[in-house]
């Protein structure tokens, strides 16, 4: 009797452990299925033209995505210009001065902004920049992306600054160096490489976003470098090509997917291995 119960309990254990192994296998195989397929379909479309030439109209073969590649770099660069310095300084505020109700509010709002759906950031950028300017623009796109990057940078900076030992600060203060200089020269530079990790993750996330760019930066079949004009980006062009009915464009979508996923994954693996080495 008790033997039977024991066998039942043992059986439950085996079944549950096997399902747990299976879950892990599912998780890993999904990654390889997706990456493998993107590589398999995309690698044929990768050539020099892809990086250097402009898109061609439907039916004309060849051409490339140079406008989207440059556009993505431009949008991310612009977004970083806002979000990196502001994000780092807010992180400094939270870790060095952040006590009391106001700091808790800022922390809470940073967390909830981190969960803000990308599309909502897009609508906000639309109402703040596109409507007053009466025009889709690279500026609006960058603004939307910078909203998505900001909370990631703030959070990682705060966490990393908190890890800087007190002794370092005290040593610097004891030498008579003003507190602000201590923070900038000693604390921030000690945590420099860690903060960089957060920045890379933020850039990687924003670089893959299409939703907020659809109706802010819009897209552009030509090369554009003006911030007040619509601008192409890799994720948006990928989306447009993917949902089009043309086989040739589908091929381009896969090639863009390979480039995009390559950049994003290399960035996150670098950032993560960097972060784990530091600990």
């Amino acid at each position, binding site marked *: 009797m008790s033997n039977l119960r024991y066998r039942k*309990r043992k059986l*439950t*254990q085996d079944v549950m452990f096997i399902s747990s*192994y*299976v*879950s892990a296998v*599912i*998780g*890993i195989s999904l990654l390889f*299925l997706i990456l493998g397929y*993107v590589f398999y*379909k995309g690698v044929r479309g990768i050539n020099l033209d892809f990086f250097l030439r402009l898109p061609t109209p439907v039916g004309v073969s060849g051409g490339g995505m140079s406008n989207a590649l440059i556009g993505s770099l431009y949008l991310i660069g612009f977004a970083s210009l806002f979000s990196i310095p*502001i994000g780092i*300084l*807010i992180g*400094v*505020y*939270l870790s060095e*001065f952040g006590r009391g109700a106001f*700091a808790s509010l*800022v922390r*809470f*709002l*940073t*967390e*909830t902004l*981190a*969960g*803000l*759906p*990308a*599309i*909502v950031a*897009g*609508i*906000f950028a639309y*109402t*703040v920049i596109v409507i007053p300017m009466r025009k889709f623009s690279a500026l609006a796109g960058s603004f939307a992306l910078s909203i998505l990057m*900001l909370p990631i940078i*703030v959070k990682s900076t705060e*966490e990393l600054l908190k890890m800087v030992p007190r002794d370092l600060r005290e040593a610097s203060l004891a030498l008579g160096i*003003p507190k*602000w200089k201590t*923070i900038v020269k000693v604390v921030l530079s000690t945590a420099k490489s860690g903060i960089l990790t957060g920045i890379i993750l933020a850039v*990687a*996330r924003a670089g*893959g976003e299409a*939703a907020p760019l*659809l*109706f802010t930066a819009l897209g552009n079949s030509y090369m554009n470098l003006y911030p007040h004009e619509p601008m192409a980006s890799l*994720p948006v062009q*990928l*989306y447009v090509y*993917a949902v089009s009915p043309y086989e040739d464009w589908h091929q381009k*979508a896969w090639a863009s997917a390979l480039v*995009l*996923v390559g950049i994003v*994954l290399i960035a996150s*693996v670098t950032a*993560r291995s960097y972060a784990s080495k530091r600990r």
Partner: protein
Amino acid sequence: MSRKIEDNLFKWLTTLLALAIVLLSTGILLMLTHSSGLSFKEFGLGFLGSSEWDPVRKVFGALPFVWGTFVSATLALLIALPISIGIAVFLSELSPLWVRKPVSLAIELLSAIPSVIYGLWGLFVLAPIMQLHIEPFLGRHLGFLPFFKGYPLGVGMLTGSVIISIMIIPTISSISREVLSSVPGHQKEAGMALGMTRWEVIWKVMLPYGRVGIVGATLLGYGRALGETMAIAMVIGNTPKLSVSLFDPAYTISSVIANEFVEAVEPLHISSLVELGLILFFITFLLNAIARFLLTRMKRFEGVRI
């Protein structure tokens, strides 16, 4: 300049920038509320209950999108939750140490893949598999249920849910893993001492101990699922209709915004789309706030990246 003034200036500078976070959050709320005023004035609360969406006749109702968003996200959660807990248990209890790192990395990398790429893969790989194999199979064996009736189209609610579930697995599993590894050793040993099997320790000791954290992780995943845009816009079929069958195409709040915002010229149309965005903002804000509250209640969790 005396150093006291310098220090104070620096402190005020950072405080002022921190204020930007507060302004940004309230700004989003105010601008969205302001821009959806037109639609709110026209339809009132009936906006939520109406299932008509006709830009030509200028009639707008949110119901099909709210329905699609909740059903797809809830179904995605039902698929993702057991798998995520399984992964968390595997990584915190079962896996040998040398497996742990590469597996966690692989699963976290799933969350780094951009949404459009999930959509592309879903559209060209998953949807045909769903249409030719999985949906006919479900229809044959479970077709007596209303959820699995109808013609297998491949693009629809079910495929959309599967794609989102893949996207939220990393979120739920990585936080749950942290929760499970934070269970104190003496709790587990006590369970063992009572003669529990290893599984019973996990099921009756560890999971209840980490309950609050796992619920927080789940809510966070649910929030992501509700706000997901590109992937679902590419595979859910984008048809604003209410249907019980999971094979049928549906629509979500985020995907209708993605699809129609550029083409909307009519102020009432734009305003209705913004109001949909406002609804999404409220729901995800609430979920995030609750999740964050639960997760910070677990003190050991301070360092966990959410």
